[in-house]
C-alpha cells in the first residue's frame, strides 16, 4: 500500500488482548490499543470500539513500530539489487515501520535533489517511512562538506559517508561542528583505510588459515577513538555505525562516562556470528566491518545489554546474486537483514535469556528515534504516530531466502529455525504486513 | 549364513600340483625361462614354481612381479587389490619367453590387463599362462597353457586360494557367495 494513501483517513484499528511493551514509558502490561486517523488514540485494559477493525493479538507483544536506522535501499542507481518499493516491503515483513536510508546510492545523496527524489519515491512506492541520511562530504569523497542546511530542509535526519570512513580528521572535525548547529549526528563507518586496505575479512587465525587478507581490530578502534576525541573537542554528536570490536565498545563506554556525545549501533550478524563462519569461503558471510572473533561478539552482546551500544541496526546491504556468486576476494561486502533481524535476535538472544525483551525493543525503537530525533516515533503514547509492530515470541520461523520480499538473497542466516516472528506491522494505522502463517515451515 | 566352503586342495595336494605343473612347463620349455607372478597371490605361486623349476635341472629361472591395477578396464573393481604396489621386473622382457602365473583364472580380464602391462614393458617372444585353478565362465578369449585344476563353477560361487605367506595356510576352497539361494526341491 503506497504511502500516499496515508493522506486519507483509515478505518480505526483495535488491537485486542496483547501485551503492551513500551520501553519509552516503562509500560509492560496487558492493554488494548486503538489506532485512528493515523495516530494512537487510546490504550486501556478493555477497549470496545464499534466501527473499528479488530485484530486479535492475544499472547503477542505489542510494541512501537520498529525503526532500522541503517539500511541501504539502493535506489537511485542500484535497482538490480533493491528498490525503495521492495526494500520497504522487506522492512515491513521484518516488522520495521521506518528505515533510515544511507546515501551511497548512484548518484550519492549529497544534494537536496536526491533527497527529494528518495522521499517522492517513498511516497509513491514505499510502504514504510523512509528517512534519508545525507552525505557528509560532496561526492562522498571526504574533502568538502555538503550543504547540510539544505539537506535538513529537504528531509535528511543525519549525515554519513557510509561505505567509507571520513578519513581526514580535520574534515570530521568540521563536519561535527557544522552538523552540531542542526543538532544532528555524523554517523561514521569507522575503518582506517590504510590498515584495512585490501582486507576481505577479520585478521586472525581464520584469515591466516584461509589465506585471505584480514583487517585488524585496530582498524576500527583507531577511528572510533579519533571520533570520540573529536566529538569531545567540538561538542558535536557522533554515532558509531555497525560497531564490532571489543576495543571500540570499551572506548564508547569510556567516552560516554566522560560526557562525550557518542552513540553506537550494532548489527544482528555481529551479535550472533563470528569469523569462523567464513571458513568455506561463502560470500554470504562477507561484509564490512567483517565478522570478528568470539571475544568481540560476546563484547557486542554485553555492550548492548548494558546500554553502551544504544541501538540495533541491520545495515541491510542488498547485492544482486551474480555479484555475490564469485570468489571470496572478488565479492562485494554486505548482507541483507531486514527480514531476519527479529526472528534471529528473538531466538538466540531473547529466548535464551541473554537479552531482556524490553531492551531488544528499546534498541529498535526508543534509541533510533532519539538519535535521529524522529518526531512521534519510538513510543506507544496517545497522539504518537500509529506505527505499531506486533511480535509473537513463540511462533516458529524458518529463514528461507527464496521467500524474501527483498530483491536480494545474500543473507548469512539462511535455513535458521527460529522461535519468534513478526505477526503484524502497522504504518500510520494501516496494516501493511500480516505475518500469520508466514514461514512457519 | 554361508555353507562351509568345500576344500578342493589341501596343502599337500597344492604342493604336488605345483610340482606337476613345473614338470610340464620344463617339458615344453627347453630355453631359458622367466616366470612372472601377478599380485598378490600369483606372486607366491610363481615363486614356488620358480624354485621347483630350478631344482629340476639346476638352470637359472628369472623371476618378476607384476601389479596390474593401472591396467584394469574398470577401476572400481580394484577393491580386491587395494594398495598399488610396484611392478618389479628387473630383467629385460623383450626377446624372452615368459610364463605368467596367477592363482585363479575366471573372466580372463585380469590376464588381459597383465598382457597389456607386459607388452608395455617390451616385446616378449612368447607369453604362456599358468594358473592353479581354472573356474571357467570366461568373458574374453583367454585360455591357460598350464592348469593345476579345472573346476566348473557358477557365478554365485566363489573360489579362494590361500597361501601360507599371506594367509598362514595353503588351501583352495570353493564356497557360496554371501546370500544363500532358496533350496530347489
Amino acid at each position: 500500500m503506497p504511502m500516499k494513501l496515508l493522506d486519507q483517513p483509515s478505518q480505526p484499528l483495535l488491537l485486542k488482548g496483547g501485551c503492551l511493551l513500551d520501553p519509552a514509558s516503562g509500560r509492560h502490561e496487558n492493554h488494548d490499543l486503538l489506532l485512528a486517523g493515523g495516530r494512537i488514540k487510546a490504550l486501556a485494559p478493555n477497549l470496545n470500539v464499534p466501527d473499528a477493525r479488530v485484530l486479535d493479538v492475544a499472547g503477542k507483544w505489542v510494541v512501537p513500530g520498529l525503526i532500522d536506522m541503517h539500511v541501504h535501499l539502493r535506489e537511485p542507481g542500484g535497482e538490480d539489487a533493491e528498490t525503495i518499493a521492495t526494500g520497504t516491503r522487506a522492512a515491513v515483513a521484518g516488522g520495521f515501520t521506518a528505515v533510515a536510508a544511507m546515501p551511497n546510492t548512484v548518484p550519492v545523496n549529497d544534494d537536496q535533489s536526491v533527497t527529494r527524489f528518495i522521499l517522492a519515491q517513498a511516497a509513491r512506492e514505499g510502504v514504510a517511512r523512509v528517512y534519508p541520511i545525507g552525505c557528509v562530504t560532496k561526492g562522498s569523497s571526504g574533502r568538502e562538506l555538503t550543504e547540510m542546511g539544505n539537506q535538513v530542509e529537504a528531509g535528511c535526519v543525519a549525515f554519513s559517508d557510509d561505505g567509507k570512513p571520513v578519513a581526514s580528521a580535520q574534515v570530521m572535525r568540521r563536519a561535527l561542528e557544522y552538523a552540531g548547529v542542526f543538532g544532528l549526528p555524523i554517523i561514521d563507518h569507522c575503518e582506517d583505510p590504510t590498515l584495512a586496505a585490501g582486507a576481505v575479512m577479520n585478521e586472525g587465525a581464520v584469515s591466516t588459515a584461509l589465506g585471505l587478507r584480514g583487517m585488524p581490530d585496530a582498524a576500527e578502534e583507531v577511528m572510533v577513538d579519533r571520533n570520540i576525541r573529536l566529538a569531545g573537542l567540538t561538542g558535536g554528536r557522533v554515532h558509531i555505525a555497525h560497531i564490532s570490536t571489543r576495543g571500540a565498545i570499551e572506548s564508547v563506554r569510556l567516552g560516554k562516562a566522560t560526557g562525550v556525545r557518542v552513540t553506537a549501533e550494532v548489527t544482528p550478524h555481529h551479535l550472533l556470528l563470528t569469523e569462523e563462519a567464513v571458513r568455506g569461503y561463502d560470500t554470504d558471510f562477507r561484509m564490512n566491518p567483517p565478522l570478528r572473533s568470539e571475544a568481540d561478539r560476546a563484547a557486542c552482546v554485553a555492550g548492548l545489554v548494558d546500554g553502551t551500544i544504544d541501538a540495533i541496526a541491520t545495515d541491510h546491504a542488498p547485492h544482486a546474486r551474480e555479484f555475490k556468486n564469485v570468489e571470496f576476494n572478488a565479492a562485494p561486502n554486505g548482507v541483507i537483514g531486514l527480514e531476519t533481524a527479529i526472528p534471529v535476535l528473538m531466538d538466540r538472544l531473547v529466548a535464551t535469556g541473554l537479552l531482556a525483551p524490553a531492551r531488544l525493543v528499546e534498541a529498535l525503537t526508543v534509541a533510533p528515534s532519539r538519535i535521529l530525533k524522529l518526531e512521534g516515533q519510538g513510543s506507544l503514547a496517545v497522539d504518537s504516530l500509529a506505527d505499531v509492530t506486533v511480535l509473537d515470541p513463540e511462533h516458529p520461523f524458518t529463514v528461507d531466502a527464496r521467500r524474501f520480499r527483498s530483491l536480494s538473497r545474500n543473507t548469512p542466516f539462511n535455513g535458521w529455525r527460529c522461535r519468534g516472528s513478526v505477526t503484524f506491522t502497522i504504518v500510520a494505522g494501516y496494516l501493511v504486513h500480516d505475518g500469520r502463517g508466514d514461514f512457519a515451515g | 549364513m554361508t555353507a562351509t566352503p568345500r576344500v578342493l586342495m589341501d596343502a599337500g595336494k597344492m604342493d604336488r600340483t605345483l610340482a606337476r605343473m613345473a614338470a610340464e612347463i620344463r617339458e615344453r620349455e627347453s630355453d631359458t625361462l622367466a616366470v612372472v607372478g601377478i599380485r598378490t597371490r600369483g606372486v607366491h605361486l610363481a615363486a614356488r614354481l620358480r624354485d621347483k623349476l630350478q631344482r629340476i635341472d639346476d638352470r637359472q629361472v628369472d623371476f618378476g612381479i607384476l601389479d596390474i591395477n593401472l591396467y584394469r578396464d574398470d577401476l572400481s573393481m580394484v577393491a580386491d587389490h587395494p594398495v598399488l604396489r610396484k611392478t618389479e621386473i628387473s630383467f629385460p622382457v623383450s626377446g624372452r619367453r615368459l610364463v605368467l602365473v596367477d592363482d585363479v583364472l575366471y573372466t580372463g580380464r585380469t590376464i588381459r590387463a597383465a598382457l597389456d602391462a607386459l607388452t608395455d614393458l617390451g616385446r616378449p617372444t612368447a607369453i604362456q599362462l599358468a594358473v592353479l585353478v581354472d573356474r571357467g565362465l570366461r568373458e574374453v578369449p583367454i585360455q591357460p597353457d598350464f592348469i593345476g585344476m579345472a573346476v566348473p563353477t557358477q557365478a554365485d560361487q566363489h573360489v579362494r586360494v590361500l597361501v601360507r605367506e599371506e594367509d598362514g595356510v595353503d588351501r583352495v576352497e570353493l564356497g557360496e557367495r554371501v546370500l544363500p539361494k532358496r533350496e530347489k526341491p
Partner: protein
Amino acid sequence: MADLSDRHLLGIEGLASEEITLILDTAESMVEIGQREIKKVPTLRGKTVVNFFYEPSTRTRSSFEIAEKRLSADIVNFSASGSSVSKGETLLDTARTLEAMEPNFIVIRHGASGAARFLADRCRASIINAGDGMHEHPTQALLDAFTMRRHKKKLAGLNVAIVGDITHSRVARSNAYLLTTMGARVTFCGPATMIPPHVECLGARVESRMEKALEGVDVIMMLRIQRERQSRLALPSLREYTRLYGLDRRRLNLAHPEALIMHPGPINRGVEIADDVADDPRSVILEQVANGVAIRMAVLYLLARNWDAHEAA
C-alpha cells in the same frame, strides 16, 4: 586404508595421516613407470582432465601434463591470458563452460584463495587444487614430503625449517599442515612483517633469527621471495632480506650435516639461496621436480578410483 575419503584434493588441511601415507606409497609405484622405456599406462584412458591455469606457471603445469599423459588421459589446457577470461568472463562462467566439456578432473591454479573450493561447490568434476591464492598447494607439499621421506626414511620426528614470506605462501601452509600431521616439527622463519597473525594455528613455531631457526634442522625449505607480491612495506629491500635470511654456506653449516636443501622453485639465485649452495650435493631441488610427476600421477589415480566407485554405486 585403501582410499581417499574426499573426491577432491583441495588442500592438506583435513587429510588424515593414513591418506597422506597412501598417496606417498602410491607415488612409489608411479616412479617406476617413469623409469620404463614406454612411460605410459592406460589407467586414465578415456578420461578427460582440464588444466585450468589462471596464473602463469611453467613447472607445475608441465608436471601435471606429464602426469596426465603418462596415465593416458585426454587433456584440455585452459589458461587465463588470451582467453575469454581476459575479456572479463567470471570464474563462475568459466567453470560452467568447463563443466559443459564434462571433464572428469579439473586441475585449477588461481590467484584467489578459495578458488578450488568455489569450483568444487559448483562442478561435478573432481577438483585438484594446483595452488589457490595464498591458501594451499597440496601437491607441492606432497612431493616435498615424498622427497624428504625418500632420503630420511620417515617423516615423524624430522625438524623442518621453512624460511621466507610465510604470509603469502600457500606452500608454507600446505607443508605445515602435512608435516605436523605426520609428526614432524616445523619452524617458520622470516621477517616479522612476513609472518601471519595467529600462525600457531598452522602447527608451526616461529623463530625470527635465521641462525637460531636452522640449528640442527634436518630439512631447510627456502621459499621464493615473490617480487610480484611484494610491497616495500613488508620488505625494505632484497639486499636486506638476503643479508638477514639468505641461505649461504655459513648458515647451511648450522644445520645437520646431512640436512636437505629444498625449494619449490623457481629459485632466485643470490637472493634466497646463494649460488654455491644451490648446487650443493645436499640440494634435492631437482629431485622435487621429478617427484612432482609421480605424486600427481598418484593423486589422479586415487581420485579416479573414487570417481569410478562413486559412479558404479
